[in-house]
């Protein structure tokens, strides 16, 4: 009976399993239409960033001796933890090898992020908004949306990988081969594919887009951290991470090989099957975990806008704090292993000026810096909650009670400010406690927490920008992500990618005193706090003056 309503092409699909995929083609066209700007921006951005790094290497390190210095520096444990081992230590350090060694993992993480974010955007986020229900009630198979999203997202990742391969391969830079370029680009593309399928699995487990992308990103964080531990300790742990597999093609080395890419393909296939099985077990809109009943009355905590904001955001803030503490602990626990490794290459000490700071201090600066940039993410998410409450129409009934616009916005803002401060300090604490235990020096704990705490004003500038955008140009709220993205790509990783030092000054993260390697400077912290306050006040004033948006 349903055959009567099917399209002619659908009718040719054999009955039974085929029905589940009806309409996949239409969904693919719909998703491409929806993301006609977003997808090209991802693809071109990734290609430009990667190719740009390669050409900056050629300009900045023309001589073999320059590159050998970088190769030695890259043997530092902090660098190994960050970018991975030099997989061809006995070969001359060509531009190509340097590029493969230093940039692959980082760009791989960005490909993985793209895979997760794009996939969740087209599946769970749609289901949560109730739009999927509308679409699925038309002639559309049960698996069509997931399948279409996988095809679109994996296609995007592979096209981006291919473009990277071609532009890198065509660069003619010394040491770059076409074969190496394809291994490099396809390895990246397949990382994107694998993490899109990870998201396909997590999307079945929880009902919320935020939860599903959070879980998938936690898997990414774990994959990155596990291989850090493996690379620094030079043990099997690296092989637990798909990020490492892709890098094991060893692009631009003499013994580059393609077989590790097969591992990624197999893993992606397994995850797709798992996602399909899980999806068969659940209803549209529901997760695998059934909803529970709750309290019939509200606790006294739930009697103010702040109480509501805390209630809505607490689990997310706690998850970020725990995540950063665990992530930090990974790197804190490496502090003595890193120290030993450093001793073995003591020649570096003369060559690499540390300006009086101990090696452990540099280690702390390096990884607390990463936590600091990451902590800006929950800060911005907390401000975005204002926007989602507003557009979903949940702000309206609250603002129709005796709660002013400013007080309502200030409630979520308080969560953003206090929550992000808590997240970075707890992250620093996780790092510090692991370092203190590993290095048998309780002083590391205080150093780490202090190094983390000085990031608070910079993170608050990100909150300020988000609030200002929310109050004045709410449609552009997404622009606030520029602060953590720029902080990560330019300030944190900029040296690796040959970004000019002056570009650091544009980011609040470029002005954070590098405790404990440097002295504490109060002035930049105060200036950033003032900037944050001005932005917040501007945003609140704008919000009070503008109309509430609703559906």
């Amino acid at each position, binding site marked *: 009976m349903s055959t009567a309503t099917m399209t002619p092409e659908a009718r040719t699909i054999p009955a039974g399993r085929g029905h589940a995929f009806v309409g996949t083609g239409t969904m693919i066209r719909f998703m491409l239409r929806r993301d006609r700007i977003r997808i090209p921006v991802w693809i071109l951005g990734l290609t430009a960033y990667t190719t740009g790094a390669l050409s900056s290497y050629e300009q900045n390190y023309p001589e073999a001796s320059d590159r050998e210095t970088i190769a030695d520096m890259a043997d530092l444990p902090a660098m190994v933890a960050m970018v991975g081992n030099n997989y061809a230590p006995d070969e001359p350090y060509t531009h190509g090898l340097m590029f493969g060694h230093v940039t692959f993992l980082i760009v791989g993480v960005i490909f993985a992020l793209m895979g997760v974010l794009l996939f969740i955007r087209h599946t769970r986020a749609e289901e949560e908004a109730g739009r999927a229900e509308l679409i699925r009630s038309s002639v559309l198979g049960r698996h069509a949306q997931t399948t279409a999203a996988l095809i679109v997202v994996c296609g995007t990742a592979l096209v981006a990988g291919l473009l990277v391969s071609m532009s890198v391969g065509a660069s003619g830079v010394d040491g770059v081969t076409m074969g190496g370029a394809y291994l490099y680009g396809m390895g990246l593309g397949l990382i994107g594919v694998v993490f899109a399928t990870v998201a396909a699995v997590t999307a079945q487990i929880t*009902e*919320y887009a935020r939860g599903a992308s959070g879980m998938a990103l936690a898997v990414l964080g774990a994959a990155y951290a596990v291989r850090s531990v493996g690379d620094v300790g030079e043990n099997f742990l690296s092989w637990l991470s798909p990020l490492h597999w892709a890098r094991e093609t060893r692009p631009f080395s003499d013994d580059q090989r393609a077989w590790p890419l097969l591992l990624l393909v197999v893993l992606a296939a397994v995850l797709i099957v798992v996602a399909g099985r899980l999806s068969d077990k659940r209803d549209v809109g529901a997760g695998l975990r059934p*909803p*529970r*009943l*709750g*309290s*019939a*009355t*509200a606790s006294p905590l*739930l*009697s*103010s*806008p702040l*109480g*509501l904001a805390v*209630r*809505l955001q607490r689990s997310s803030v706690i998850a970020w704090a725990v995540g950063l503490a665990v992530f930090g602990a990974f790197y804190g626990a490496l502090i003595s292993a890193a120290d030993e490794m450093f001793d073995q290459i003591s020649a570096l000490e003369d060559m690499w000026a540390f300006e009086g700071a101990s090696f452990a201090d540099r280690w702390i600066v390096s990884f607390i810096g990463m936590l600091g940039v990451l902590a800006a993410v929950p800060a911005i998410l907390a401000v975005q909650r204002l926007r989602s409450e507003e557009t*979903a*129409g*949940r702000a*309206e*009934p*609250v*603002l*129709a*009670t*005796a*709660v*002013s*616009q400013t007080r309502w916005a200030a409630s979520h803002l308080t969560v953003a400010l206090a929550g992000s401060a808590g997240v970075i300090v707890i992250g620093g604490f996780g790092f510090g406690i692991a370092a203190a235990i590993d290095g048998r020096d309780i002083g590391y704990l205080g150093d780490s927490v202090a190094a983390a705490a000085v990031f608070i004003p910079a993170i608050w500038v990100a909150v300020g920008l988000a609030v200002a955008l929310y109050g004045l140009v709410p449609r552009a709220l997404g622009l606030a992500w520029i602060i953590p993205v720029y902080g990560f790509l330019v300030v944190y990783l900029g040296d690796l990618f040959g970004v000019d030092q002056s570009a650091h000054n544009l980011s609040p993260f470029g002005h954070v005193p590098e405790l404990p390697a440097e002295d504490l400077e109060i002035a930049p912290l105060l200036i950033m706090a003032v900037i944050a306050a001005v932005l917040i006040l501007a945003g609140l004033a704008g919000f009070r*003056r503008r*109309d*509430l948006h*609703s*559906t």
Partner: protein
Amino acid sequence: MTTAIDVTGVVKTFGQTRALNGLNLHVEQGEIHGFLGPNGAGKSTTIRILLGLLKADSGEASLLGGDPWRDAVHLHRRLAYVPGDVDLWPNLTGGEAIDLLGRLRGGLDPDRRRRLIERFDLDPTKKGRTYSKGNRQKVAIVAALASNVELLIMDEPTAGLDPLMETVFQDFIAEAKAEGTTVLLSSHILAQVEKLCDTISIIRQGEVVQSGSLEEMRHLTRTTVQAEISEAAGALESMDGVHDFRQEDGRVTFAVDGSHLDGAVRQLSQLGVRSLVAHPPTLEELMLRHYGDELGNGESAHVDPHGATGPGAN
């Protein structure tokens, strides 16, 4: 003060769209005022201006003697609002949402809360995401009615409720009226407004086109009667209160005022009725008949053909 809501010449535009075009609305204290208009006429925009959620471009609006934009917080202690499309927090239970909204307004009556939950047959322990549309609506209605307020503003509050629950709703509104509460009730269903309201304003394309008591609006409550009869219609056509009389091949169609329905039916019953259909005019019919509106969207100006065929097609 005897005026609860006083709006004069309010204009509100969203980009190119002129949502309110010099709207006037007047609601006395203690009355139940029906705010009637088709979808997209500007009902929700008016309500959001009254709640201080939107700022009017020009014109005067006053609510309980205050300025809805400037005195929002102060005024909101004295009113409760039910939105037309209720979205609850997915991980808060209905009971928690009711308490939260009540407390933010300054407290609710626990006894009335219990009674409302019971009468509306609402399970307050379910999480917001598991409620159906009707149940989400009930949560908002309970939260509003459980508070002791002077003014209730309700934007199509019963959309999604079944008829049984609509009756419960009407009982509670009657109770609120007995306590002297003013109610602004927006709706696009004429029959609902008729049952509850003392006075009515009809809004169309951002303007109130008619306003007054139900009595003054009697012509709006004419019942349309269609019957097949075996005898000549005779005196029916010229009876008091009978309008728009038409007859062909033993079928008669006419509209009759509510106060003359009894007489018309008596007369009709003498004529050998073989079939009988009677229904109140729909809002769309009213708009067509009284304001020369077109069905569907705004711009096409084919008023006459629609006006002629629209009601007859029923």
